[in-house]
């Protein structure tokens, strides 16, 4: 998406869910063999991979990163207990062991999880990695100095809610036990069948206590992965990684680590990144991006050029853009009004505003259309491709608004083509046909976030989006629809203020399941049940298209991240 790099660094990085994981892209799941990618020989070791990014790697501390493996580049330096399966498409949304020998052994009700470390694991300086280092890494993520991680550890671990990290509280977290140097045991408050997914996050990367220098650790984090940081200039603007000779492929099934050097250059304008990748001259031939999509204008140009089109990777990341209602604000307390909006929406014009059918797919379900989320197709208010204004008018008349009504749609002024004015005006145009006059209220980014995430100021009708912390229904549905997650005095994400006992109970029941396939089916059914309440109107799921240089081979794009995995890329 066209987005000046000035917008937000950390804010974007942790923004409401994994914008960072929405990393790079390359050949799609369907055309992923090395053929499309400039070379037909097998991937080989050596060379320098250049990464052209718009956002600097400001956070390079495992405590402060949000996503699985901290996204693309950090995952080359930090190994975690488990990790994402580095394979194309749906296979890539599986969780697999990394430092641990398996994805975790739960007790009977999934409240205690035990992991054993592989043998022979060492840091970049050759010292062994111990289970105590993993415990310490998790503990320091609780320090207010190192905030930024996901909320799950605090919510799930026994007695962790008020823990302030090892700097203030030397006793540590009693919920984590390390009976020996290779074993680590986690005690949870309640059953959590998806714990193996959580263990992919960088908080589960080992940090040697002796090397911890607090907020300065990010300048040179100690590597457990195939690469180590040799240069970190201007707070992540220019990062150079080189081979960690103490890493052994024998203990790591996931990272291929073909290039000798990874050169990450950021702070670039997104249109310039795409120009450079399409020109693909000099060092740019061996370049990828882990944060910049093709925008509509660039897609229009690329799609007319066969050679360029062959160098576009397509991926799907679990992400939904939607209209949200606050049912405590009139007239949206009336389900018929909400349903009328759902019928009136013209998804084809919204999709066009978001970049066209190649960059966005119309959505009628809140869950992304992927099996691992438990995707179950449904459409409670079938509006067709471009809206059903007649049906909307009929519902409005039933609700007592025979002559139409006037409402305010709140959106952000960011240039993200998600909650931005372009989408809002497309919605405005469609609702006009159904007799709903929409006044636009565009807020500055921070103001917008403050307003929609505060129970006290939440507007009645606004644009929102949600992305997957990992490819499963749990972190997708629970924060938005679990009544016990309504936060009255802080950032609230249950914007529909739904507190339905049957929904809450079903969430608890699914969390008990350690069979993730069985859980997925029930998340899908729950999504449909919630969908009938018309608390949100799903608009579209984004599709990621990214260019990569002409010398880049071995493109792998999983459904977990939707973007090219740089641990698999070869440039020789």
């Amino acid at each position, binding site marked *: 998406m066209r987005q*000046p*790099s*000035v*917008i*937000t*660094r*950390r*804010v974007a990085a*942790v*923004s*409401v869910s994994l914008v960072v994981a929405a990393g790079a892209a390359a050949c799609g799941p369907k055309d992923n063999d090395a053929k499309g990618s400039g070379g037909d020989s097998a991937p080989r070791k050596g060379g320098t991979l250049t990464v052209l990014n718009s956002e600097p790697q*400001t956070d390079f501390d495992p405590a402060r990163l*949000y996503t699985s493996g901290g996204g693309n580049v950090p995952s080359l330096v930090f190994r975690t207990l488990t990790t994402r399966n580095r394979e194309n498409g749906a296979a890539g949304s599986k969780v697999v062991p990394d430092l641990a020998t398996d994805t975790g052994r739960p007790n009977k009700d999934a409240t205690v999880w035990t992991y054993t470390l592989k043998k022979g694991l060492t840091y970049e300086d050759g010292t062994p990695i111990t289970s105590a280092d993993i415990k310490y890494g998790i503990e320091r993520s609780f*320090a*207010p*100095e*190192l*905030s*930024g*991680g*996901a*909320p799950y550890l*605090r919510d799930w671990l026994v007695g962790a*809610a*008020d823990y*302030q*990290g090892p*700097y203030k509280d030397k006793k540590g977290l009693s919920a984590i036990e390390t009976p020996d140097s290779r074993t680590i045991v986690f005690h949870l408050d309640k059953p959590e069948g998806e714990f193996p997914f959580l263990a992919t996050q960088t908080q589960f990367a080992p940090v040697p206590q002796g090397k*911890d*220098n*607090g*907020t*300065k650790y990010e300048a040179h984090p100690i590597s457990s992965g195939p690469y180590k940081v040799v240069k970190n200039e201007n*707070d992540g*603007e220019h990062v150079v990684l080189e081979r960690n000779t103490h890493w052994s492929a024998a203990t790591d099934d996931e990272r291929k680590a073909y290039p000798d050097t990874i050169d990450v*250059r950021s*702070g*670039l*304008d997104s*249109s*310039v990144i795409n*120009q*450079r990748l*399409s*020109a693909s*001259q*000099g060092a*740019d031939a061996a370049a990828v991006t882990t944060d910049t999509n093709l925008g509509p204008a660039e897609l229009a140009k690329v799609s007319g050029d066969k050679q360029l089109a062959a160098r576009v990777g397509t991926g799907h990341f679990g992400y939904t853009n939607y209209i949200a209602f606050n049912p405590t604000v009139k007239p949206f307390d009336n389900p018929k009004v909400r349903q009328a909006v759902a019928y009136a929406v013209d998804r084809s014009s919204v999709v066009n505003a978001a970049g066209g059918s190649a960059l966005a797919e119309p959505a009628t379900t809140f869950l992304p259309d992927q099996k691992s989320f438990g995707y179950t197709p449904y459409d409670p208010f079938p509006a067709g491709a471009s809206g059903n204004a007649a049906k909307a008018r009929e519902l409005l008349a039933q609700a007592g608004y025979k002559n139409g009504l006037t409402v305010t749609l709140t959106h952000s002024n960011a240039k993200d083509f998600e909650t931005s004015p372009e989408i809002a005006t497309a919605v405005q145009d469609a609702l006009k046909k159904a007799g709903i006059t929409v006044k636009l209220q565009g807020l*500055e*980014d*921070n*103001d917008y*976030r*403050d307003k929609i*995430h505060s129970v006290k100021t939440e507007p009645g009708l606004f644009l929102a989006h949600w992305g997957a912390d990992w490819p499963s229904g749990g972190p997708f549905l629970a*924060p938005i629809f679990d009544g016990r997650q309504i*936060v009255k*005095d*802080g*950032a609230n994400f249950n914007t529909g203020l739904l507190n339905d006992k049957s929904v809450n109970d079903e969430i608890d029941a699914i969390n008990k399941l350690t069979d993730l396939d069985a859980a997925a089916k029930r998340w899908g059914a729950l999504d449909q049940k919630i969908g009938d309440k018309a608390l949100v109107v799903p608009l579209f799921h984004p599709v990621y298209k990214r260019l990569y240089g002409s010398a880049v081979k071995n493109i792998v794009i999983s459904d977990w991240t939707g973007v090219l995995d740089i641990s698999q890329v070869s440039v020789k």
Partner: protein
Amino acid sequence: MNGFTGFVLRRVIGAVVTLFALSVIIYVVFYVTPGNVAQITCGPRCSPAQVHQVAQQLHLDDPLYVRYWHFLQGLFVGQDFSTGTSVEHCSAPCLGQSYQSDQQVTSIILAKLPVSFSLVLGAMVIWLVLGVGTGVLSAWRRGRFSERVLTAITLAGTATPVFVIGLILMIVVCGELQLLPFPEYVNFTDDPEQWAWNLLLPWLSLALVEAAGFARLTRASMLETLAEDHIRTFRAYGVGERAIIARHALRGATASVIALNAVTFGSAVGGAVLTETLFGLPGIGQELVHAVKVVDLPVVVGMVLVIGFFVVLANAVADVLYAVADRRVVLV
């Protein structure tokens, strides 16, 4: 000399008052600006308790005057910051530490200034040559069709926003013709040649935007001189028009061009936001825009003070140079 000392003294006092007022204004403005700083710093999914901890950590809950007092303390005696495992001292003049990146503001500024200077210095050479050149030509060909064409060309630079000029230049020169590499900042000390090649397009884009002002000014002050009595006398004595332009009119324009140059330079050091953003040059302007968006108050105040300093300095320098070049002006 005494008069000059007095002038300098008055300017210094004026500058200090201006910068002080700027810092107060920024503090007040950011106090009322929406955006929960602690929530932004902590991350969107932080719990109210965590947000509270971060707010305490950064002294965000303190009243405005207390926070400003901390800022002044840092400036005059220095400040201590906890890294978690140890305490770091930031010695005076300390502009504080970024909320977002935990870096000291002074070190951020020191890292960004060379970039901004590189950009503006090179661009200055081009805008002077281009601007004064077309200014002279259009004064010489005044009232003719060729002058209109020249004016049109320089104005095209001003009328087209730099993000359009820059992008098209890049697409054509770097993408299609492949004459230059795509710009990327290289330290002058690392490789002066690469530094220049990489900055060539940013220089050109920025210069094209500024050149028109110089052209207009050169033309205006040359015409001013050409209307003066002594030029009439020269003409009357048969001195050629070229000689008059080169020897007299251009000299008359020097003072004002120098003055405009100082001012343009001063404001571009922190003000070339669009050029820096488009070409990915990590300079002062780009950093300031980012800091404003994430409500990173210490960085904003630091940057505003640095930018203000250069603007004030440039104005003073402009006045001095103007007085030196045009001895009719007295610095009082």
